[in-house]
Structure formats: C-alpha cells, structure tokens
C-alpha cells in the first residue's frame, strides 16, 4: 500500500515538473514572440498613423508635424530605437496591427468593443467627445433680450430635439455607428474627407459635420472667421478614450507602452505638445 502511494506520488511529481517545464517553454516562446523584442532587435518601431488628423498629425511645408509625431519620437527615445511612420487610413488601423504591417498605432484611435476583439489598447492618453460643427442658423433661437432664455443648445445631444437636421459624417469613422444608434430620426450624408464635411455645411447640403471635439476645436481655432455663423456642440460628459493600438495578447509591449504613457502624462509632456500646436 505504501509503495503504491509512493509510486503515485512520484508520478504526480514528475507530472508537475513536466507541466512546469512546458509552461516555462511556453512563456519563453511568448516572450520571444513579443513585438517588443522584435522592435529592439530591428532597432526600429513601425508606428501607424493617420494620413491627416490635425492637431495629432498633419503636414506643414512638406513636413509631418503634430502631437502624435512628437509622441512617436518620445516613444522611440524611451525604447532606444528609431521610428518609421506608416500612414494609414482609419479603416486600416486594426488590420495593419493584425498583419504585422505596424508595431503600434498612434492615430487618434478611440477605444471600442468592436476593435477590442482584434487588437489591444494601451492606457488612454487623451479624452475627447463626439462633436458637431453646426450652422448656428439651424439651431432654434433660445435667447430673447438680455435676460430671457429657453434652455440653450449646448451639446451634440441637444440636436435630438430638432425635427430637421442633416449630419455629414466621414466614411469609416466611429461616428457612423453613433448616428445610427443615437440620431436615427435624422438624415445623414456620408463624405470622403474632412474638407468635404465642412464644405457640405457651408453649401447647406448638411447642417452639421460630426467629428471629434479635438479635431473640430483645432479646425475652428485655425479658421476663427467661421465663428460668426458656425459653432461646435460637444458631447458633454460622454467622453471617448484615445489609446495606442497594440497587437492582441502582447502583454510585454502593452506593459512598456502603458509605462511610457503614464510617464508622459505625469510629466505633462502631452500638455506641452498641445500648447505647441
């Protein structure tokens, strides 16, 4: 009886050893597979970015500049490697990570469940809201005189109160699904570029162009002559988180990028880049 137990115990012990060895190999494999080591080995990080997304990335005098360009340099400096910027359209973001075309996405990408099935997200580095660039004449007059006012139209959600309103939305943007779910009574026209979106509002074919608050605020700041007739209604307390896109399951790279993001937030580096642009 004692021998049987002893034999059984030693078999159990071997089994555990085997499991440990296998787990160690698996972990080692995972470590070796992490994009982080490839980046270090290649001495280069490939960063996917939007073609044009001011103030995050835009072209000035033939040179790429913007908050995310500065972020890319900072990340490369932290990792001790060089950067390769890969211009992508919003639609290509997730597939570029999945097919190993890029190591990381820094493209003003908002975190959502649909994307979360395919890629991982870092800690957020920016908070934005959905917003609409709207023709003021399309909003009802709420103020009469120096004191009297009905509830003013202050957020994009107030548009729900309007019976007639046509949104312009950029094809492939996250706001197409937002309009479908939140503004189902309103008309929508799909545009191919930001320029087309603004032009639709100016020509009267749309009453508002939906985009994120960051982009719209930057654009109206640079074109302050529009403020006479047009305004931006933001999303109030409903925010979206902008994160870096990381390969699915790559814990080591995620850990390193989260560390870097937390540090640039703590050191107020992002605030400095905002002021710069």
């Amino acid at each position, binding site marked *: 009886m004692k021998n049987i137990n002893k034999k059984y115990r030693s078999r159990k012990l071997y089994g555990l050893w085997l499991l440990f060895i296998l787990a160690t190999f698996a972990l080692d494999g995972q470590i070796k597979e992490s994009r982080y080591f490839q980046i270090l080995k290649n001495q280069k990080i490939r960063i996917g970015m939007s073609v044009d997304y001011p103030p995050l990335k835009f072209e000035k005098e033939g040179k790429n500049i913007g908050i995310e360009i500065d972020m890319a340099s900072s990340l490369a400096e932290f990792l001790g490697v060089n950067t390769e910027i890969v211009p992508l359209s919003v639609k290509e973001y997730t597939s570029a990570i999945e097919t190993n075309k890029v190591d990381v996405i820094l493209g003003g990408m908002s975190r959502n469940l649909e994307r979360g099935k395919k890629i991982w997200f870092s800690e957020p580095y920016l908070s934005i809201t959905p917003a609409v660039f709207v*023709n003021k*004449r*399309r909003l009802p*007059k709420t103020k*009469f*005189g*120096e*004191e*009297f*006012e*009905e*509830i003013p139209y*202050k957020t994009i959600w107030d548009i*729900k109160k309007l*019976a*007639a*309103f*046509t949104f312009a939305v950029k094809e492939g943007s996250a706001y197409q699904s937002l309009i479908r779910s939140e503004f189902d*009574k309103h*008309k929508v026209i799909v545009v191919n570029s930001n320029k087309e979106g603004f032009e639709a509002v*100016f*020509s*009267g*074919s749309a*009453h508002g162009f939906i985009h994120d608050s960051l982009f719209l*605020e930057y654009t109206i700041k640079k074109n*302050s*002559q*529009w*403020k*006479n*007739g047009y305004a931006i209604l933001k999303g*109030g*307390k409903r925010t979206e988180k902008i994160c870096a896109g990381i390969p699915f399951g790559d814990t080591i790279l995620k850990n390193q990028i989260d560390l870097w993001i937390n540090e640039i937030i703590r050191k107020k580096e992002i605030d400095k880049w905002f002021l710069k642009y």
Partner: protein
Amino acid sequence: MIYIKNNSVFSAAHNKLAVLLFLFFFIVPLNAYENQAEIDENLKNLSLSGFLRTRIWHFQSKTAIGDFPATSEQKKVTYQDLFFRNRLSLKVNESTEIHSVFDIFTVFGLDSSDSVETMGGSIGKAGFNLKTRNVYFLLKPNSNFETKIGLMPFSLPGGHIIATDGAGIRFRYDFFKGLLRTYFSWMKAYDNSKEDLGKGFGGNNYNDNDIYIAGGKIKVSEDIKTEFYYTYEKDMDSLKEPDTGRLHWAGIRQEIFSGKLFADFNLIYNWGRTNKNASENMFVNAGLWDILLGLQLKSVEISLLQKGATGSPNDLKAEKSFQSIRPSHGFSFIFIDNNGGISFSGGAMHGIYGQGLNIKFSIISGLSAELKYVHYRTIRKVISFDAQKDSYLGDEANFYVKYELYENTKLFSSLAVFLPQKAYTFYSQSANKRPVYEFLLGGRVDY
C-alpha cells in the same frame, strides 16, 4: 493586585476601544462610502452652467428717448451692470429631469437712492441676490412626449407676443416620426409677468390672469419649416364684472433655407377686447410682421430685415395697436431694443416699422464685427401741434465688435447712433433733433 485590577480595567477598556475602533474603521467608513457613492451618483447627473456678464454703458443726448429726458445741454449717463446666470439641472432618471435657473444682478451708477438693506445684501440699483427664475421638472416617458411643470420660460417665435418666465405647464407631442410637433401650454402669470392690459389701474394686477398657448411645427422638408401658433389671454378683473380682457393672437412662422440663402417670415394677427380705461372697453384688430432675407457665406453674413406692427406709435390703446403679453424683441441697439441701455421701446411695438441691412463679418483671428443700419417710419403720419404731418421717425446705425479672448471668454463693444427726424419730434413734442449716442463695453465668461 492593584496592578492586575488596573490591567483588567485597562483590558476591558481596551476591548471596548477595540470594538469602537473596529466600528469606526470598518462599519462607519462602509456607511460613509455608501453615502459617498450616493452623492457621486447624483453629482454625475448634475449639470451646472451659465455665464457672468458685465457691461459699462454710456449714453448721451439732448433728445428725449424712453426714460431719458430732453435737456438743453448734452446729458451724459454712465453706469455698469453685472449679471450672473446659473443653470442647475439634475437628471433624476432616464425620463425625469429637474431644471432650475437663478441669477445675481446689480447695477451701479444709474441711481444711488437704493440702500443696501432693501436690496437683500446686494448693492446698486435693482440689485438682487439669487433671484429664482426657473424651477421645474421635465418628464419624458418616451421620445415623442414631453411635459414640463413648474416655473419655466415661455416664449413664442421672435419673442413678439411673449418671452417671459412664468408658472404653468407645457406639453409636447410628436406625430409621424417628428414631422409634426405639437405643443400646448397653460401659464398662470406671476409677478411682473403681466402688464396692466389697459385696466386703467396705476399698477399691475395679477389676479386671475391665464394664458393658453397651442401650436405645431411642421417639417415640410429638411429645409422648409413651418410653425403655427395660437395664444389666448383671459384677464379676469375681480373688481369689475364681466371680465375685462379677452385677447387672441394667431401666428405663422416660416423658415426656408436654400443652399447659402435663408429666409424667415413671422406674421401675427391680434384681435379681441380689453379695457381702454377703467370704464370703457376697446376692441383690438392688429398685426405684426417680421421678415428676414439673407445670404450666409463662410465668414460673412448679409441680411435684409423688416419689422413692423400696426397701430399708433404713441397710443397703445388705439384699435389697431398691436398688443402683447410680455414681449422681448429687439431690432436695433437704441430704438427697438431689448438688450439693455437706452431705448425708445424695450419690446412693445405698435404703429412703427423699420427696415434695414445687417452685415456680420470677421476682421482678424478671434475678432468679429456686425454693422447694422435701420430706417424707422410710422405706419400712419404723425400730426404735430401745428398740424404738420410726417412719418419719418429716424435712422439708426449700429457697430458691434466682439473679441474672443479664450474659448469661453469674450470682450465686446458697441456704438449706436440714432438720428431723430421730423415725425419723432412731432411724437416727442420737441423741436430737438439732436443725435442719441449709446456706447457699450463689456465682457462675458461662460461656464
């Protein structure tokens, strides 16, 4: 023994202390966290917004206008006002909201006779601390139906008939996926929301005054919107039978957009009866129109405007004079003006029409401006004491400039000049036709 006794006492006290500490650190904080969570939940649904506005006014004139008397020398008046609006809203659940609006207001330099004590701690003329303007709740059982109950704002297009806060109830119901939006309101007038309506008394009478509003908005297309409305004011006089006032208004507003062009038409017909004086009734048969045609470009907006109302400019009790409940509609900075400062009329308009041109444009980054010219005439010719007749009231030019210092901080300034003409001198029974000047410098911070 003593030592042991003390020790046991200490031990018992220690145990009690331990229990108390346990309760304090574990039980009390748990409750505190619970309360904290409740407070946080409410804070999450709380919304606070508003603005602080301060303005320095300066006007000078020899000509009588509004409360401003005619003087032989150029009389100058300078004063400052402060207005702090606070909107506080709480979303109780998905279909219930509570809204409130309260203001702090004071004026310095216009009148020094008011004492601090009578103003509830504020200083200046007509100053007040925390005036409650709105307190009401809103129920939205579904997206098609909405009701509001309490003290709330009531207005109709253009603010021509009514734009005031009052106690009452409002309903809205949408038909055909919002293609037809209907509304009904009942308003019980409250302090200062109701004018005398010609009862002939020295002050206002707030007894038994009911206002009913019904209307609908039709969306013909995305670019054509029509609103029609009817208002009925029943003004009972408890001192006099039968009732003293039965006034009706029926209006239509048409908004049309076509590319960069826009048009806005308002037409109101007013009828009914009211008191001419304490013993005599009068019948009202009047109208008001307000037309705007414009072109909107990226940084420039040009519009042609005309507004007028039937009746006599200096007699609200004339049969054709347009009556209103508590209007608030301006047209220019001096003559028909509801934005503060000097004015001939702060909202009521009868027997006058004005037409002009307005241009809004941008000067440099953050700096925008507005230029307006309005030509005013009377509907019928005014007769002077020496039997001369004329309808030319005057011309007004306005220049307004606004600078956006930060996203929520604006500085603004305006200069307005009104040039009275012959009909105005007949109306004011003075030979003085000297210009009236109004200058404004202000700032506003929104939050």
